[in-house]
């Protein structure tokens, strides 16, 4: 087709001419997309004008082995043949059409300062909404005067985790044990209060991003060991234990989390003795833990299966018993293999926490739902969801990056 036209076939001899011609056409095409220069033409022509200009421009600068390094790498990456050129043009058009309006909405036309709805005069986003509701979005309905307790609990958590990173390996063990077995209870007693002269705050008042973190942290801590035992159970040589584990795992993996939450909130109280009462938040955390531990078990099982038999044989031949062999030989290697899987399960858990909305617990997304239905602040759903999406994205992206670095750190050659 076009290749056969020698007139239009760009060559090395008059490189500068082709480059300048191509650039002019290309810039003209881009300019047409942005400013609609050829609007006077009938719509079905003006629609294709920029496409044709850009295509021609890219065709003219597609000079093979031009000797110009920048041009060569450009051609290789985005302009290697006519199909790639069209893809490039569409990608650029998409970016031109979508990025500027998005930036306008997010920043340039947006209102940042103010205290009420009327302060939002621009066409863009009304970040005043987030500003005003910020405390509620983070802490839920927790009493304003007591917020320092949540802050203290989380700052303590961050400090202890930071400590675990910097101390020597000998002390690190004790810090980790403290972190996993003691600190959660300190955190809960600090946040819920009721002793040490702290005011009792009902779990109904907990909410916002803090609740997301609380549920995630507890479910993560519990679901990991439960998942390990389930994975071992599924590979057990005792039929009763094996089938019990299989049944348990497949049951939780087969149902959606939302029905599990329904079960925890409406069905489970029926299963408890008459006078006992279990807090809804506790029931929900147990439900999420059981649900995610089944997924964790499957991930860990993948690691166990991937280990060669020789590792088991070696462990046994050293005279190790079942538990010691798994603790010292099998688990460290198996878990290392499945770091990405474990990270994915943790990510799924964090992304699943907003679902607790259906049983009436209001974490970040639930609080946004509440804020946007407030009569004084109607019509700011988009801002709220973009904010929440940003927060969750940061959390999840950071977790996945961290898992990749862990994977690299513990990678061993086989």
């Amino acid at each position, binding site marked *: 087709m076009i290749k056969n036209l020698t007139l239009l076939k760009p060559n090395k001899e008059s490189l500068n001419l082709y480059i300048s011609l191509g650039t002019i056409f290309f810039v003209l095409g881009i300019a047409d997309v942005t400013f609609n220069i050829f609007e006077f033409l009938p719509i079905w022509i003006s629609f294709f004008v920029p496409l044709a200009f850009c295509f021609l421009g890219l065709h003219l600068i597609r000079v093979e082995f031009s000797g110009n390094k920048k041009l060569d790498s450009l051609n290789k990456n985005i302009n290697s043949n006519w199909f790639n050129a069209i893809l490039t043009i569409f990608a650029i058009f998409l970016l031109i059409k979508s990025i500027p309006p998005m930036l306008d909405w997010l920043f340039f036309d947006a209102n940042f300062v103010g205290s009420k709805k009327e302060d939002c005069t621009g066409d863009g986003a009304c970040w005043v909404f987030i500003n005003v509701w910020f405390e509620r979005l983070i802490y839920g309905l927790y009493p304003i005067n007591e917020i320092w307790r949540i802050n203290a609990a989380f700052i303590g958590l961050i400090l202890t985790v930071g400590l675990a990173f910097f101390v020597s390996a000998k002390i690190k063990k004790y810090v980790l044990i403290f972190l996993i077995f003691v600190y959660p209870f300190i955190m809960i007693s600090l946040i819920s209060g009721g002793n040490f002269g702290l005011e009792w705050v009902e779990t109904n008042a907990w909410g916002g991003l803090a609740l997301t973190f609380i549920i995630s942290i507890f479910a993560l801590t519990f679901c990991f060991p439960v998942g390990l035992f389930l994975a071992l159970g599924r590979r057990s040589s005792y039929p009763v234990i094996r089938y019990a584990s299989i049944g348990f795992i497949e049951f939780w993996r087969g149902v*959606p989390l939302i029905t599990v939450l329904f079960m925890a909130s409406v069905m489970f109280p029926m299963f408890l003795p008459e006078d006992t009462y279990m807090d809804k938040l506790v029931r929900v955390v147990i439900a999420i833990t059981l649900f995610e531990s089944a997924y964790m078990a499957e991930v860990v099982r993948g690691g166990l299966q991937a280990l060669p038999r020789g590792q088991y044989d070696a462990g046994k031949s050293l005279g190790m018993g079942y538990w010691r062999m798994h603790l010292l030989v099998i688990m460290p290697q198996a878990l290392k293999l499945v770091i990405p899987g474990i990270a994915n399960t943790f990510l799924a858990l964090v*992304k699943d926490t*907003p679902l607790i909305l259906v049983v009436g617990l209001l974490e970040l997304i639930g609080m946004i739902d509440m804020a946007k239905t407030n009569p004084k602040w109607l019509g700011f759903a988009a801002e709220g969801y973009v904010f929440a999406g940003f927060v969750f994205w940061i959390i999840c992206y950071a977790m996945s990056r961290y898992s990749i670095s862990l994977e690299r750190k513990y990678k061993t050659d086989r």
Partner: protein
Amino acid sequence: MKIKNFNLGLGGFLSNNPKLGNFLPQAVTLFAIIFIIGFFTFNAQTNMDTRGIDFGFGFLKQESSFDIQFSLIDYDGSYSYARAYLVGLLNTLLVSIIGIFFATVLGVVVGISRLSSNYLISKLAEIYVEIFRNIPLLLQIFFWYFAALRALPLPKEAISFFDVSFLTIKGFFVPKLVWTNFSVLFYSLVAAIVSIVFIYIYGKRKQEATGQRIPVFLISVGLLLILPLVVSFLGRVGLDFEIPSLVQHSETIFNFKGGINIIPELMALALALSLYTATFIAECVRAGIMGVTKGQKEAAASIGLTPGQILRLVVMPQALRIIIPPTTNQYLNLTKNSSLAAAIAYPDLVLVFAGTAMMQTGRAIEIVSITMLTYLSLSIAISIFMNWYNKKIAIKEK
């Protein structure tokens, strides 16, 4: 690290008595399971006795007396709870199938794009995957439903597509196909498909026996097009379009009448499910294609296969072996995730049955169990099928 001997004496005792060592842990487990189940059953029994509720599924036959906004089969308040269950289940399946279709198409496109030699395209695909994979699905559903679709115009200023379909805040109105003598067309299609299967088998046998190839693909397309057309013509199959039209209800209230209304809940849910699941499918596709080694393609080319044949006969069969198991898992996840419909009031199984029906009857145990069992049997059926399929396509090593 030094680990002290933490056999509590019991371990040594058990390993000295193999029979007892085999029996005791299992007996303890069994006892614990029976105890827990018994404890829960006993409590449930006492609780229901004190509240005067009896356990049973008789309520399914009662009149439901609530309406469902969107239904694929005839339904109103006078039908039974069992029928409401069916409506919910069909709606769940509908949104799942729509979601699976679009997620697969988008996922394959994005997965291939990520491997593209074009820098811009692969970068865009990567950005898409990283953004949509890391935001909770519920948030995405809410965003499309409460923020994006609410910005659509009212019926009076609807966005029209060729004057037959209309996109409004109340949903997407598309023409309805009204068939006459539809069964004739249906049977002719079935006949065409059956004969294609036979021709395919015959063609394969002939190629294996003699090496001659018959143009199976062309024959199939021809059969699929011509046979139904001819039969429809002879059997007087008719097709009419019922185009939605704007109707004025009062001075300011307009709405569309006729056609099929794809309600905004369905749109938002299908959109969010497809966009979210497509990111995972894209990763599966990418892993699958990267999993086929270059040597395979070169070997295929060296025995004289055309590029199309290489893709069809050598690359795809091997890539699919890697792609299909995790992708099926994603389909299953999508189906389970469609239960998030309850959060935006799309009448799926969870909303209709575990929501409205449970509020009305108050039978928490029966209804939650039925709902869970439905999802459970769905996923167990699919995983049994997948295990069978995996065994079938696994490489048989010598």
